[in-house]
């Protein structure tokens, strides 16, 4: 595996006694989009903050592109860009000054051409002389992204990047994230919007109560843990499920007017025709058929519920 971030046996206990992270081990592959999902207080932001150097770890090891975050913090941090969840900006600064500040802070010589490209990509170029306090919430979030990209990082952490932004901006940000990934930047995002992870992530990690309970490819996760349902709208209501259908997981809905069959994703090719044939043999007539697949959100909710 070509990891750019390697986390081994990470533990974090705050002074208050709160155990925020428990024995977390994780490899982030170079060039991927990794979504970290978890309910509030699961430890997502703590994990990001430790990798970025904002919060101290209690035990464990983390390296970024082979550089230990404690011993070689300069090399490690220079490769990371962070977009925080909250809109932390210097309100009296102009857009241009603040991105220039960020580039310098990360040890890079001034490069007006690069900053111009970043601002243009984020539709901020025309706002470069505006004070941040005069920008809208969505624009401020773009400024935070521009600041994180000012020093050309190899890894970009996006902590709830689309929280509180409108649909159009969310779509713009998704496009930007894909564009960054295509340019070789590794993206790690936390999000409450499961649809965001479903839309963008290559791999998904689920964290709950400080423990990483699952890491998998999105497609494989959907395949392994996803369920498919076949909904059969019956011509005549059924009082009880006939004995001849005991081989399937069936439930009667809508006063016996609908038969619901649940099966694992991937089994539909075998299960659906067999069930329909069996219904025909038993003389059960139907007027409509619908299928639905469980979303990542349902998978996530089930995983979190099981880990409680």
């Amino acid at each position, binding site marked *: 595996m070509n990891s750019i971030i390697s986390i081994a046996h990470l533990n974090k206990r705050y002074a208050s006694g709160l155990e925020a992270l428990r024995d977390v081990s994780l490899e982030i592959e170079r060039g991927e989009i990794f979504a970290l999902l978890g309910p509030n207080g699961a430890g997502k932001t703590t994990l990001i903050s430790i990798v*970025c*150097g904002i919060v*101290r770890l209690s035990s464990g090891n983390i390296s970024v592109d082979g550089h230990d975050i404690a011993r070689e913090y300069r090399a490690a941090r220079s490769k990371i860009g*962070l977009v925080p969840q909250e809109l932390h900006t210097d309100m009296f*600064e102009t857009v241009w000054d603040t991105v220039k500040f960020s580039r*310098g802070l990360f*040890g*890079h010589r001034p490069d007006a051409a690069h900053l111009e490209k970043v601002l243009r990509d984020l539709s901020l170029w025309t706002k470069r002389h505006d004070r941040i306090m005069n920008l809208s919430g969505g624009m401020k979030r773009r400024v935070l992204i521009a600041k994180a990209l000012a020093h050309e990082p190899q890894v970009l952490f996006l902590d709830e990047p689309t929280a509180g932004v409108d649909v159009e901006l969310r779509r713009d940000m998704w496009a930007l994230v894909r564009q960054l990934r295509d340019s070789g930047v590794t993206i790690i995002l936390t999000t409450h919007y499961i649809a965001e992870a479903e839309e963008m992530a290559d791999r998904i990690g689920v964290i709950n109560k400080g423990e990483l309970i699952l890491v998998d490819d999105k497609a494989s996760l959907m395949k392994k843990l996803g369920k498919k349902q076949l909904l059969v709208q019956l011509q005549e209501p059924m009082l009880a499920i006939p004995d001849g259908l005991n081989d399937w997981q069936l439930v009667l809905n809508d006063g016996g007017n609908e038969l619901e069959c649940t099966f694992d994703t991937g089994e539909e090719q075998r299960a659906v025709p067999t069930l329909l044939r069996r219904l025909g043999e038993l003389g059960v007539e139907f007027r409509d058929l619908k299928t639905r697949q469980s979303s990542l959100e349902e998978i996530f909710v089930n995983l979190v519920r099981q880990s409680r």
Partner: protein
Amino acid sequence: MNRQRLFNLYGVLAIYRFEMARFRRTLWQSLATPVITTSLYFVVFGSAIGARMGDVDGISYGAFIVPGLLMLSVFTESLNNASIGIYLPKFTGTIYEVLSAPVSAFEIVLAYVGAAATKSILLGLVILGTASLFVPIHIQHPLWMAAFLLLVALSFSLAGFIAGVWSQGFEQLQFIPMLIITPMTFLGGAFYSIDMLPPVWRTVSLFNPVVYVISGFRWSFYGTADVGVGISLMAMMLFLLLCLTLVWLIFRTGYRLKS
């Protein structure tokens, strides 16, 4: 990044310039307030009351109070500038960027404290210029005066940095300058020689570290001092060392910066 493996020059310059830009944005407030306050001191103590007072150690009263007044401003401004410099990012949350950047603790302190000290030295020079409009000033040891000014600006800016990290609200931010430094300065010989005090109070005054700072600084102007210059210098160096130790402890433990 090769050159920055040892020292992040661009990082230090970025913080330093950011802080100086904040100073420029509030230039009138930063300069006019202390200049007007100092001018009022000269009008009241130098002209109105001072004209009725005799010389102190052979120096006219108006001229005698110049080093003390200048120090009062430098103490206060160094503390305020450095404490606000580090407190504001903590308050607004923008500290995340500094903490996640490849800058060392030394570089962070150098930038914030360097900017705060620069501002208070500039202010000190402006006040010196203002004072010269009211009283004739002759500096006997200009190099020592510059050295004392630099030492005081640096050490009090370090103290301000510590206060800014320690503060958890604007009220606490004002606590040290208003309730500790200003009274110590007024009782530290800014407006009188401690030789003018009764023996008991003179002894008590010797426990006030500000006495040594003002005395040493006054010596650089007029060649007279309440305590020996060597002792003043040693007291200032000790204070600087204490501040450096506290700053080192802050970064070692992450006190109120990193959880």
